[in-house]
């Protein structure tokens, strides 16, 4: 039954890892806006700024 200690130990480490990930995501601002992301995924033309080419620009 000593294996229990190891198991509990590992599960706590995992749990702490998840907590750390949660704290990181809150601090990076992912939870500041909970409405717009739900709308964003419904657009057909996926926004992809990194691969955009120089388009017709308005003058």
């Amino acid at each position, binding site marked *: *039954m000593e294996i*229990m*200690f190891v198991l*509990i130990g590992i599960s*706590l480490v995992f*749990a*702490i890892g*998840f*907590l750390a990930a*949660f*704290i990181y995501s*809150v*601090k990076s*601002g992912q*939870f*500041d*806006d909970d*409405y*717009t992301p739900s*709308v*964003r995924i*419904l*657009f*057909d*033309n996926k*926004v992809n*700024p990194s691969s*955009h080419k*120089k*388009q*017709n*620009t*308005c003058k």
Partner: protein
Amino acid sequence: MKIGQATEATVCYHCGTPCDGHLIAHSKTFCCNGCKTVYEILDSNNLTEFYDLNAGAGTSFKNAGPKKRYEYLDDEVVQRQLIRFSNGNTCRVILTIPAIHCTSCIFLLENLYRIVHGIESSKVHFTKREAHITFDKRKISLRDVVEKLTAIGYEPNIQLDSLNEQKTNFFLRRYYIKIGVAFFAFGNIMLLSFPEYLGLDAITESPFRKIFGYINFVLALPIVLYCASEFFSSAYHALKRKSLNMDVPIALGILAMFFRSSYEIFSYTGAGYFDTLAGLILFMLIGRFFQNKTYEALSFEREYQSYFPVAVTLKNNDKEQQIPLIKLRVGDRILVRNMELIPADAVLLSKNANIDYSFVTGEATPVFRKNGDTIYAGGKQIGGAVEMEVIKEVSQSYLTQLWNDAAFGKQAKENITTLASKVSRWFTPAILLIAIGALLYWLPTDAARAWNAFTSVLIIACPCALALSSPFTLGNVMRLLGRRKIFLKDAITVEKLDQVTAVVFDKTGTLTNTKNAKIEFVNDEGMLAELHAEELKLVKSLVYHSSHPLSKKVNDLLQQVPRYETENFVEADGRGIEGWIAEHHVKAGSKKYIYGENYPGVNAESDFRHASKVYVSIDGEVKGFFLIKNEYRKGFGSLMKTLAEHVSVYVLSGDNDAEKNFLKQYIPAENLVFNQSPSGKLNFIRSLQDQGKQVMMVGDGLNDAGALKQADVGLVISDDANNFSPACDVILDASQFEHLNGLLNATHKGMGVIKVSFGISLLYNCFGLWMAVTGTMSPIFAAILMPISSITIITFTTLASGWRLGRNSLE
């Protein structure tokens, strides 16, 4: 066209407003060139999904005002205040764009990089109506970004005091993290406490018990030290002020639990109460979080800086230059154009000017000023551009002086004693008495049992349920009111509203609706009549060109009437207008202007002030006048009656007393006060408060700002939530005006729910105390009682407040 259908209504493809269909391009109809241009921009960049998401979602350019000037955005000082983040050549700016209203807006604004060269990316925060735009400052300037946004219909609202949003973000984030940590600890502690619950002796006798105990202790540390820190600091501050609030017994309970459990763990005498501790703190944090609901798109804290423009046009020896308002100095010559705000007290240099002070003083008609007159800040110039010389600094002007009043220095009106703090005043001493009583009772017989009883009482009496009643009920009431377009600044406003005994109304704009005035035509025999169609066309052609508010009202009335071309249009500022239309000489204006100085009766003018008159003459023949009456808001009469049944009602106005006779029917004459300056209003509120009344001020304009701040509750009636409104506690949408009494009733009902909920939680407490004083309370008992009581309270308050406030509109 189908049979039975009238003419097909044509709407603009871009903005959806009805139009006459003569402008057609790309096989689509548009109402104006502005809309057509935006369509072409979207089309050429493959962004027509904009219209697929929501038809006609564009901002209409049809009635767009004069082009705004953004030269001040080139100024370094201004840029530094607006640009949030700058890394080499990449700049990030957060712009508030009130025009954001649907998913199409999100789509378009997040695809900005395709339309505007130089913008790298942009992200929309819908609930806050914000766009976070990242751009390369080598390729495009801040000013260009703003101008391009305006060109596609998304004009940003530039304020220099917009740096307070940062606070809400951090505030919420802190709560998320605290709740996350609390939940983590709670879950794991409960898991490790399972052997206790299930009474598994095989496990509890072995080394597991010790190890689990130690792990529980370690897990409980962050909860007590980090998550519960705000309870401790709040209790400490209350004790320092020699008062008691709900957090004092909570802090006591937490400490009792923590120390007793630590003792039990380290002396192997028990399993401790860490699971109850963690659960309790978790529930209370959730309660606090729930109560802190705010309306992110609205601003309850607007100071005068957001009313004044960000920049002014400086005249430097005939050269015009835009400078930020903060750089304005005494002696500067400034140019104020049509519809622009006068930013500081100044002396008029031009021949004359027409200033609209309605937002400041409540006077509905514009004030006519001549060369050399002093013009106070806050008014809007109507008509041509005028020059003036600044005589006082912006912060020293007649209007902003108001903000120096003591009323604005007060941080929070601390005279409100919440129901919860009233209860805790006797609750804490009672608990301490019972605890000490139990201790002294058992001490002679069994010392261990005595300490057991003492700490048990503190633990079980920890008013978790009690502390949850207020936040959940108030938070729920706030949400339910918000759905009915009544927005409260915070939860405590509900309690303040419950205690209101006097309601003071501003007149112009609050009781009256300045947008929908009633217009009737009275002919020269003094009877209501109609002008002939031809005459209407002539009048319309004339008033169309004038920017005077009265001309605009007549123009709105005659919106459908077609017009002719006007020649020799002359606007004699403030007095009247005239022109030649289709071979007729048409004049419109004040009685003096139309009849001439020498007409008998012109000087003995008893102009109805609550109604304005626009006289009309065609070819020298006076036809009569348009009578424009301010309309009182819908439900005004019945609202005054129902309010008078349980509060005192007053009306304060910056206008003159012309309407006294009308208002006397609803409100006793001694409660009507006219000709009030902004500081006069503030002092009136003070005098009522000195009489011991709890005052709610209902206003809408800058002239009410002082009164709104001084009152116990400040309520603003808003026709459009995006427009400026002074700092207040409640924003009421104008359509809900008739339900003002219903608002007060709703708060009474909400407080009633809280009282019942207190009763229920006290019952739980008594039941638990009965067990605790025997000194035999087990951890399991606490672990069961506490969640049950909490969940009962949460469910009860949510259901009861929802039921009491009703599904339909407030009555």
